[in-house]
């Protein structure tokens, strides 16, 4: 069990309010991702749930139990840190066994659970090494091993993959998702990487300056961003935002269209412009089109085989049903 409820939670450091009153519910077994630009309060929020920081006001309930006065050690949560935070003076085996030792399990049970976790995480051959002798990916797996042995009510991940190289990151992303599917335990995952958020989450919580901008499934956020901030943050490359005459035609202050919802042609289209930089990813090509009269630059996705020279004139047509409309306050018009 691991339902986590935040009610009117606030956090200030001195005069600076990092989290204004915030309500949020994370259901048992859910994979929730807190995402937002750096400094948006997502890590602080996680640390409040962990108990590493005290809330200034409001309530945090884990499984219905108010836990302001419960120290982190007894909240039944496990945390994986960005820096891994392994104990450098202990072997991998002792690192993973540490929470069990603290919980008072006997040696036989400790060994059994450590072996089991090590088998799951491919760490069996490294149990007698120290963290300093492991690679980044292995260290991350030790940190995860240390989190899972205690069978916590929920896992908290604080940007766990940001110290890994790109290839490893994709692999670990899958491993964590697999882990969630197998354990069905609540997980809260903090990241600034919207790709991680989109690929892993059941529920994404988009934060800005401590405010929850939108909560929803990845596809909800992709299809119907509630405001301009979410529209710009979710999706890669970013949604094109167009103001002015073109927006007025749609009865909006701003309209948004994703690069993948614009078709391009050499000869005809609703909009036209000059091709600037082209990014060839193999599967896709992204063109940055200038001098369209709409915005500084419009990004368009095309098939990987499509090629236009730098400086060529091209024509673009947006899919009308994929145009997002926003009012003068930046809120979505339904």
């Amino acid at each position, binding site marked *: 069990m691991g339902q986590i409820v935040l009610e009117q939670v606030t956090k200030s450091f001195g005069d600076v309010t990092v989290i204004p009153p915030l309500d949020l519910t994370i259901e048992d077994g859910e994979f929730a991702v807190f995402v937002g630009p750096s400094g948006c309060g997502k890590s602080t929020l996680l640390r409040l749930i962990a108990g590493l920081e005290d809330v200034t006001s409001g309530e945090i309930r884990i499984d219905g139990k108010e836990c302001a006065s419960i120290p982190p050690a007894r909240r039944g949560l496990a945390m994986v840190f960005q820096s891994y935070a392994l104990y450098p*003076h202990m072997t991998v085996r002792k690192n993973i066994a540490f929470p069990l030792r603290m919980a008072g399990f006997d040696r036989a049970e400790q060994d059994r659970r450590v072996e089991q976790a090590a088998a799951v995480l491919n760490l069996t051959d490294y149990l007698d090494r120290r963290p300093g002798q492991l690679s980044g990916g292995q260290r991350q797996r030790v940190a995860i091993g240390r989190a899972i042995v205690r069978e916590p009510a929920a896992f908290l991940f604080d940007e766990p993959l940001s110290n890994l190289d790109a290839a490893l990151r994709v692999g670990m992303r899958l491993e964590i998702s697999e882990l969630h599917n197998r354990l069905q335990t609540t997980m809260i995952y903090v990241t600034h990487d919207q790709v991680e958020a989109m690929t892993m989450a059941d529920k994404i919580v988009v934060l800005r300056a401590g405010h929850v901008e939108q909560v929803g499934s990845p596809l909800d956020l992709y299809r119907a961003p509630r405001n301009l901030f979410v529209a710009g943050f979710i999706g890669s490359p970013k949604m094109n935002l167009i103001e002015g005459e073109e927006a007025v035609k749609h009865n909006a202050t701003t309209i948004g269209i994703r690069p993948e919802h614009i078709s391009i042609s050499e000869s005809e289209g609703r909009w036209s412009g000059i091709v600037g930089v082209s990014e060839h990813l193999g599967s896709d090509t992204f063109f940055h089109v200038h001098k369209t009269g709409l915005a500084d630059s419009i990004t368009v996705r095309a098939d990987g085989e499509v090629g236009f020279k730098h400086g060529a004139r091209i024509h673009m047509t947006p899919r009308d049903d994929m145009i997002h409309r926003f009012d003068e306050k930046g809120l979505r018009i339904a």
Partner: protein
Amino acid sequence: MARTVTTQRKIVTTLVAWGIGLLIFFPILWTILTSFKTEAQAIADPPVWFFFDWTLENYRVVQERSNYSRFLWNSIIIAGGSTLLGMIVAIPAAWSMAFVPSAQTKNILLWMLSTKMLPAVGVLYPIYLIFIQLGLLDTRVGLTIVLMLINLPIMVWMLYTYFKEIPGEILEAARMDGAGLREEILFVLTPMAIPGIASTILLNIILAWNEAFWTLNLTAARAAPLTAFIASYSSPEGLFYAKLSAASTMAIAPILILGWFSQKQLVRGLTFGAVK
């Protein structure tokens, strides 16, 4: 371009280093040499260097005249006790300053250090009176407490700088893993800080061992440590340099040996944080 170190340059620096080293060590060397001379040779002019009649006479006389082992035992108890007591106070203090700092932490640290700038004699009178009142004069307990207090600022400072180097996330991880404050300090912080704690302990034993002002002023016979043992040979009977040297050699020998075997640890301790 890499700076080339010529052989000539190497020789010069080596000579200079040895020169400075010998200059610093010379008083100790001279004391040790003198302790093996006769009283006449000890004050000979010009001084004799190595070619004299080596004798153990002074050591025999010193042994006969005073009870070395009693002074030694007092020194061990006072230096060891004040260090142990100090660590019990300093580790939690440094922990709180390093990991739960408040707005005043820096000020408190500086204020603590400022007590070291106070001339000791300035507080001799009040402390002497307090000692009389509490019946602590010439007791090992009293001296242990005083030495602990005067070295405490240095202990806290040293430990604080060591603890600062330990990433706070590791302690937070311990907290998340179910460790209480006691387990956190005992199983995670202390093992990681062992080099720092060891050099702090060593430095404090040495400081307490060599402390003369308070030990001389607050003891008479019963609690007198080795510093008083040396002093007893310097005053009444005039100038018995050889015997004084023998007493000094006996007093500094234990700490010299301890220092020699732990020099690696000490050097690391004193330069910690300078290189990384």
